[in-house]
């Protein structure tokens, strides 16, 4: 009898704990009202994130007396981890008004009914309309689900090739043209490979999809998911062609087995890698370190050329008690005033591309490195054929699955064909709109 009571007690206690945990995840608790505090969740990827957040908060508070912006720092080594931790935060009962979001997380946040679309605000707010006119349409497309516009972007990146100008000069190679082909790229990378010096012609990261395999896939007119992001297409002919090309670079010794993103950047800076692909973020590392021997160019053309785009912003969360104030904050971080202030200086530039075309032009005019800086915004304005970053609702699982199989393929553990078939099978249950 005693045992029975204990067992029942333990089960009841467990149920209470679970009920408490599950109650915490409910999004139906009443929102705070009348508050003039704006809670903003942001990805705390490093000291720069805190600095940016503080500067946004102070600027917005100065423009809106009586309003306090409270930053909620969320840790994570990549976007996937950030979204996982954001979900945990919301499940614990916190109700941020705005939360930093990138293209990768659009579907995840939308499918969980967390975002308040801004369509109505854009229709009725002239300031919003004017901002929209200064933003490349492709950026807005990457932040739109169905007809719902999730946010105005405050930052974005496209993928370009970084090349070491010193190594090019030493090898007597002319800077690449914007219309270079994958064959020309391979020939140049081969010429820049010197095993005796431990120098590779090209490297790509094995820990991220965006600056890793995706631009090569896009330029074979393919993607890892269908256009509506409802179906995996990892073993399509275009993806296989891109992977075969990259695998060939490793087989020939032109590229190392893909290292981590930070290793790629530091090895490029040290001259061990002659070329690599990334967005604008490396310039914020190179310039303060005094490293200037580099320039950028578009990814080489495969069967086509498509700019790979990822952007981010501060969407209004449905849990916000002050959606109008949250909209004001979103407009503020996209405004010319804030975007212009982000440009920085040639020795301490901003590590992303401004979302306003006018600000991007100012950045180029201000001498922000590299020499071909205008290519960053030009790649989306001049090449309207885009590949938005594939961001299925289960983005974190999607990214880790893609990386798991790319590791197997490029590590020589599976053939390209077998690895992509396995990746497709694994992704088929992850990428779905059902």
């Amino acid at each position: 009898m005693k045992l029975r009571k204990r067992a029942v007690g333990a089960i009841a206690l467990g149920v209470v704990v679970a009920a408490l945990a599950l109650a915490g995840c409910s999004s139906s608790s009443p929102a705070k009202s009348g508050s003039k505090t704006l809670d903003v969740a942001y990805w705390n990827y490093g000291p720069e994130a805190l600095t940016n957040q503080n500067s946004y908060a102070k600027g917005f508070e100065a423009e809106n007396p009586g309003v306090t912006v409270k930053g909620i720092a969320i840790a994570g080594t990549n976007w996937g981890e950030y979204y996982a931790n954001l979900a945990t935060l919301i499940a614990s009962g916190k109700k941020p008004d705005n939360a930093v979001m990138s293209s990768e997380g659009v579907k995840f946040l939308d499918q969980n009914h967390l975002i308040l679309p801004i369509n109505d605000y854009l229709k009725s707010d002239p300031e919003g309309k004017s901002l929209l006119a200064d933003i490349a349409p492709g950026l807005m497309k990457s932040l739109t689900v169905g007809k719902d516009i999730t946010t105005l972007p405050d930052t974005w990146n496209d993928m370009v090739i970084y090349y070491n100008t010193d190594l090019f000069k030493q090898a007597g190679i002319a800077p690449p043209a914007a219309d270079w082909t994958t064959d020309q790229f391979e020939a140049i990378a081969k010429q820049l490979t010197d095993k005796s010096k431990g120098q590779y012609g090209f490297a790509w990261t094995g820990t991220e999809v965006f600056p890793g395999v995706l631009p090569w896939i896009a330029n074979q007119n393919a993607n890892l998911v269908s256009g509506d992001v409802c179906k995996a297409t990892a073993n399509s002919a275009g993806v296989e062609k891109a992977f075969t090309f990259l695998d060939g670079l490793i087989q020939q010794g032109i590229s190392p087995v893909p290292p981590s993103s930070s290793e790629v950047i530091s090895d490029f800076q040290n001259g061990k890698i002659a070329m690599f692909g990334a967005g604008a973020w490396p310039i914020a590392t190179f310039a303060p370190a005094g490293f200037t021997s580099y320039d950028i160019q578009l990814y080489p053309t495969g069967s086509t050329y498509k700019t790979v785009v990822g952007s981010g912003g501060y969407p209004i969360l449905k849990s916000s008690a002050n959606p109008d104030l949250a909209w004001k904050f979103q407009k503020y971080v996209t405004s010319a005033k804030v975007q212009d202030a982000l440009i920085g200086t040639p020795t301490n530039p901003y590590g992303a591309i401004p979302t306003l075309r006018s600000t991007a032009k100012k950045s180029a005019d201000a001498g922000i490195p590299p020499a071909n800086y205008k290519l960053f915004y030009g790649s989306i304005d001049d090449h309207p054929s885009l590949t938005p970053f594939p961001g299925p609702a289960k983005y974190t699982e999607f990214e880790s699955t893609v990386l798991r199989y790319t590791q197997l393929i490029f590590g020589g553990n599976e053939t390209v064909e077998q690895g992509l078939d396995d990746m497709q099978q694994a992704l088929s249950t992850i990428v779905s709109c059902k």
Partner: protein
Amino acid sequence: MDTRAAVGFLAPAGVGFVLFLLLPTIAVLVLSFFDWNLLSDGTFIGFQNFVALFSDTRLASIYGSTALMAGGILVINIAVGLLLAVLLETRMPTWIRTFFRFSFLFPFVVSSSAVALIWRFLLDTDLGLVNYWLGLLGIPHTPWLTSTAFAPFAVILVNSWKTLGFSMLIYIAGLQGIPNEVREAAIVDGANAWSRFWRITLPLLSPTVFFLIVINLINGFQLFAEPQVLTQGGPGDSSRTVVQYLYDTAFQSFNLGYASTIGLTLIVVLIVLTLVQFRLSRRWTFYE
């Protein structure tokens, strides 16, 4: 009064046990009957998560890789830890003994992630120092972290390097607990060093060996930081551990219910393994 004092002294540990061990374990048990993605309301689904375990082919292979790595770490800790402890208990100047003890123990007190991060740079196939040095000896580059064959051994190597000092320290304590009279009696009886080790030292050290087997096996099955930082569990699942898979299921797939069920399997496996060891230890453990 005595009872109150006892309760007072036990309370901090008791509260910690209930808050951080008992309640979460019960919550895990309850959650394993739910479908919950952190953001939605949970749905009770009965035994569906338990049924899913049997069709999860990844889980079986991940248990295989976890057992391989836990076994490797166990063997190295038990064998090499003992060797180091015996060597450090031989006659030598005190400063040399202190220096080596400190050197072997130091990695144990450093953060696992920091250790793994440094090793990741050292073991990089093309740009790492280990392959560079091996290359000087004419040995071709080894894909330590990118080959399914080598990645689990890289994890074993790094974790063993970190934990070996702990095993060595416990062995030293065990060796120092062996009464000198027993050894002296063996010497008087004419036993050489080899015989003394196998017939006196090792049998009297068997409770220590047993303790280290239990601890190292549990730690091995709970590996997380080293494979997460070194290989992210790859290539494929070759160096993925059950705890990593549990974490991925919970915080990448947002399937908290199934992750809880995986956690329960780990609890059961560890309890069974520990009970088996207790049972088997009766045959080879000697207490004075």
